[in-house]
């Protein structure tokens, strides 16, 4: 019998996590600490998270808030594949924040690193400072440029940070740096981040790390977890189970 993690036996992780989110929303924002747990033993590198993020945020070519790194380890016939989904780590000590010359990016009281598109000057210093490659510059490109028309999925408004924006030439977020914000605008409505909802293998989990009863807290108590580049002291809030 293969090992079945305890969480699989539960009725529905999504419902449990949505309850966790609801509970967290009852608290003052500064008492929440949103975090993500990614079970690497269950990730099949289907990129559903990558795609759902694309659909949710309508990000242009080259801008990816979450990606899945896929690597082959070993030599044939002793080969295995390792997968590493990589959203923004929402570091407790985010190196990208201090470097911003105009304070256009900061860690909000819920612990999410956010960007004010109307302030960002597009110097891209923060992109160089992120140790995880989580920040992207919006070059103003389109998937359907050089076709008869831009497809509606590119021109439809987005609601990042709860602001309705239609991407167009020379207007923010074009010319800005962009990144994963744990779908803060969905959280406000009690919804889970898009990548959590759409993970086909239930490898991604989300919740309030300050709440001992949340699913993510429970998993981190029971399983061995690690974070990326912990030696840099960034203190990420994305945990990996292996």
């Amino acid at each position: 019998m293969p090992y079945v993690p305890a969480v699989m036996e539960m009725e529905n992780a999504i419902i449990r996590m949505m309850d966790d989110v609801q509970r967290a929303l009852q608290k003052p924002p500064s008492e929440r600490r949103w975090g993500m747990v990614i079970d690497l033993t269950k990730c099949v590198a289907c990129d559903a998270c990558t795609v759902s993020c694309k659909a949710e945020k309508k990000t242009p070519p080259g801008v990816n808030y979450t990606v899945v790194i896929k690597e082959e380890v070993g030599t044939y016939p002793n080969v295995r594949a390792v997968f590493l989904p990589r959203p923004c780590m929402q570091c407790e000590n985010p190196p990208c924040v201090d470097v911003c010359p105009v304070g256009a990016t900061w860690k909000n009281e819920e612990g999410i690193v956010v960007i004010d598109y109307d302030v960002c000057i597009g110097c891209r210093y923060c992109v160089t400072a992120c140790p995880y490659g989580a920040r992207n510059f919006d070059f103003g490109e389109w998937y359907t440029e050089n076709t008869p028309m831009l497809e509606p999925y590119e021109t439809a408004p987005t609601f990042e940070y709860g602001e309705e924006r239609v991407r167009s030439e020379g207007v923010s977020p074009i010319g800005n740096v962009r990144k994963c914000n744990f779908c803060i605008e969905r959280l406000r409505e009690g919804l889970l981040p898009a990548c959590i909802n759409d993970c086909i293998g239930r490898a991604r989990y989300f919740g309030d790390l300050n709440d001992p009863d949340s699913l993510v807290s429970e998993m981190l108590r029971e399983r061995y977890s690690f974070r990326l580049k912990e030696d840099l002291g960034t203190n990420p809030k994305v945990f990996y189970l292996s």
Partner: protein
Amino acid sequence: MKNNKKFNVAYWLVTVVLLAVGAVGLYWRLTQGHRMANYGQLIVWGLWVALYIYFIGLSAGAFLISSLVYAFGVERFRPIARLALFTALISLLAALLNIWFDLGHMERFYEVFSRPNFLSMMAWMVWLYTAYSILLLFELWFELRTDLVRWSEKAGLSGKVCRILAFGSKDTSTKSRARDTRTVKILGSIGVPLAIMFHGGVGALFGVISARPAWHSGLFPLLFLVSALVSGGGLLLAIYAFLAPDRGSEAHTALVADLGKLVLGLTLLDVLFTFSEYSIALYGAIPGDVGPLLKTMTGPFWYVFWIGQIGLGMIVPIVLLAWKRTNRNPNWVGLAGFSIVVAFVGVRLNIVIPPLSVPELQGLVEAVPSARMSTFYVPSTMEWFLAMGIVGLALTLYALGYSLLPVKPNKETSHG
């Protein structure tokens, strides 16, 4: 004189071509934004950032050399002190233009003043070079003032320009000149720590980034200062050796040789710093640190390092400036300076680009199917054109200033 005429024709021909090409680049940049640029998500800074630190280095270096005279009273270099200040001003302008066009939202540059974040080295850098540029303008004006007043009498454009720039000042008395000299000494003295802070700050801007181990070195601010002095010195050396009105005189030959000695010393210091930076990193062999260096030395642009940085930037100038048969000949010494000026474009490219070309996480590049996510970068035509236009503009302003203002390195102007 005949040679001079030929040089002028060639100079303006090159400048006009650069400006024309630059106009195309500017049109593309303003209508297409960053779409026609080749930097991407990984190598997120490119040619313009490299040229920014190149020109800002030239500026800081030229300024610090002028301070030898104005702050420290090294009279030996007085004949070129004004030229050094003027060179610092034009280089600064070219630097700022480069970095301005690099911004995603050029129209928001003022935010660095209206809402600075002083935890950011970039904010510090902007504030410090703003202070520096104000100081530079004032220092240059006080240094030129009496000559501007005198030149106001001249007929033609030069007289008109000098009259405007004298801002109504009329006093050319020895007493007023002595007052100016004191002011210049004070400004020059404030300028020295300021230039060290702002250019050290540019080095620190890179040095503080722990995510890029190849930048994250305590040597960076110092390395930037040394290389600023070398490149700024090299530029002055080339300009003075080839363009001084007193070319061929004994005084000129002697001063070129002495300036050459200064640049030689600075270049040797740069060799020491560069060796220290590279050898320590290579021995440590941390992938994020050694990867960019190996790429610099053995990657597709190995020649920028070996032929540019080492050959033209170190070996050629050291040989020309140290060898008895060349180091007293203004042409060879000037060539050494020119060689440095060319090589340092490569030095700056190698500081900015290779450290960004190694992905922060292994496999990240392959995970993103986009041409923007690449470990390879060559500037696009638009980037080259715009940069060439900025150089053309700098050459235009330099030539205009050189011919219209009392900044030429000769006895008439240098002793006020």
